[in-house]
């Protein structure tokens, strides 16, 4: 039995689906961020796997993943800072409750 490209893509796809589901259904902002991480992660896997299987001589996919991880880190740090700040003001991280900026 061989480990084909396909076999790596399936868990990644599943992970992405879970991320979408979580992003849309969760109300806690941190949980939404976690779902976001799931999606990002699945994309990273795809980058790496495609790179490794299709273009083994290059490292573009790997670098993209690397940068994606860096950006994800930055983004998460900022997002969490904002969330905590929002929590300070609204005493809440429920995305449905925070509507002060609406309209």
């Amino acid at each position, binding site marked *: 039995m061989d480990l084909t490209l396909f076999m790596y893509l399936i868990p990644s796809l599943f992970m992405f689906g879970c991320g*979408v589901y979580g992003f*849309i259904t969760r109300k806690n902002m941190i949980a*939404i961020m976690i779902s976001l991480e799931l999606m990002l992660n699945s994309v990273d896997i795809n980058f790496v796997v495609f790179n490794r299987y299709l273009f083994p001589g290059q490292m573009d996919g790997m670098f993209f993943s690397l940068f994606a991880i860096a950006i994800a880190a930055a983004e998460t740090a900022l997002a969490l800072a904002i969330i905590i700040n929002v929590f300070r003001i609204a005493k809440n991280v429920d995305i449905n409750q925070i509507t002060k900026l609406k309209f």
Partner: protein
Amino acid sequence: MPLSLAIVVVALPLFMFLFLGLVGVKMGRKITGWIGVLAMLVDTILAYGVALTYFFGSGQGQIVDGVRQAVVVANPAWLSFTDTLVVRMGVLVDPIAAMMLVVITTVSLMVHLYSIGYMSDHDGNAEKGFQRYYAFLALFTFSMLGLVVATNIFQIFIFFEMVGLSSYLLIGFYYSLPAANHANKKAFIVTRLADLFFLVGIMILSYYTGTFDFDSLVFGPTMSGSLDTAQSAISTGGGATFLGCSVMAWALTFIFIGGAGKSAMYPLHIWLPDAMEGPTPVSALIHAATMVVAGVFLVARLFPLYVLVQGAMNVILVVGAFTAFYAAAIACTQSDIKRALAFSTISQIAFMMTSLAVSSNNNSLIEIHGGYGLGYMASMFHLFTHAMFKALLFLCAGAIIHAVHSNENDKMHGLHKYMPITSICFLIGCLAIAGIPPFSGFWSKDEILVAAYQRGLGWGIWMSMVAGMTAFYMFRIYYLIFFWKKHEVHDPHHAPKDQPWTMTVPLIILAVISVFAGGVPFHDLVTWDGHHLHTALDMKVACTSVVIALVGIGLATVMYRKENPLPERMANAMRGLWTASYKRFYMDELYQFITHKVIFQGICVPIAWFDRHIIDGFMNWMAEATNSLSFGIRRLQSGSIQAYVYVYLIGALLLGVVTMLCVLL
């Protein structure tokens, strides 16, 4: 004296208007008045010089082959519509213009002088606005002079507007009085309405003839018997007809309506009685002697055209004859002396109009009397004499009003004892207007009646009857003012008396003119074609008219010489008729109804409502609709990130599906 001085005659009052209006207001009141009088005196002398030179001088081109010509002194272009349609501001001297120069300056001078006294209180202090008054008088004089020397029909229109303005300003001289305020508005708007017709008439006329100038319209080769192009356009109506009449008949009728507005012909007469709210000298100058004859002058000026278009002539004839009677009927019952005189004026102007209109080019009878110019000559003659004696009557009325401070004749009565000079002057005026020889009115009115009888027996009898009514109502007024019963004097120190010399001298001068003006040889000087007109006193007509006038005077003497119940009984016997006449046959009410109820309430108010609520409402509705639409769309922007992601994802997937389908298919 060169005829070109006519330019100065016209320009001097304009200069005086600007001078008195801009500089005069900073000067003393009396001094301004005297400057005005002095300038007017100079102007009068110049005008007499021009007129005498024109009529009796020689060598300036005014008589060619024994035919009197019109002399154009100056004619600069003022406003060029097209190459041929050019409005010029010219000065033209011809018989009627020269005659009008004399009339206007004479009466104006008298009024200028008279106003020094009239516009002051009994201690001789000038009223507030004295300078303004003289400035406006000068403006009026300028406008009227400009009108009569016009070289083209558009210039006449321009000065029609200008005299309308001066009349407006002078009627409203006491602008804080509501009555004056209404009267000037009414006068302006009614004459403006007439001017609208005048304008349309000019537009039609100029469209078909391609010119405004009298030079080609009136003084063309017609004088020598043939028609030039402009006039042939008129005689054929340019070939065009409208509603069954030739367009030229329409044009000339419209122009006549313009004149009728100024000359207060029925049904456009309603402004004139109200215009008596102005100072009395103004009424004498504008609303008796000069401006109101502008319409007659206009028709006379275009007489060679009217002669060619019988339809328009007939309109004038009917309107004139009716107005003469109508106004005379009203004048018989008025209690306000100025209004009575105003209706008398309307009636007399209608006489002039009728006289012009009885001229006809297809009446063989008239040929015997030297062409159809008799009515024209008579009309101008009457215009001249009427200006003098009506100005006299109005100035007398002014003197009386100044003395008793009322217009109503029941406040007067028996003034003969107190104001003998005024009484005699008024009597001369009455005799003149009644047509008693040898006073001037007799000569001119007689010619009119002759012309009317020539046109037809019916017209002659009708006009004679009106002449009889004239004699009656004038003497009614005379008796009611100066006799009837003893004047009630409350305070012997303030008893009415003859007015100061500034007011009395004009009366005497005008009285003298009224007596002798009948001797002016009009048939020699003022004829429509410049030829000498052979006239003879028609003894049948003359005797009849004198008898009728005497009957009228006699009736008035019986009824009004001494206080008696006869007038009251007469009025009671014909109560309905009497009231209708006193109320001026409800014409004012009719106008009031049409303007206020129909036009204002029925048209203007709905239009304004329509504008605010339908048109503007539609615009506002569009704004509202856009607004609500935006608010509706705003709901899509819920601000919920999850909804956005969902929509985004679905959209992206759809795009993916579409792409795949494209790839597959």
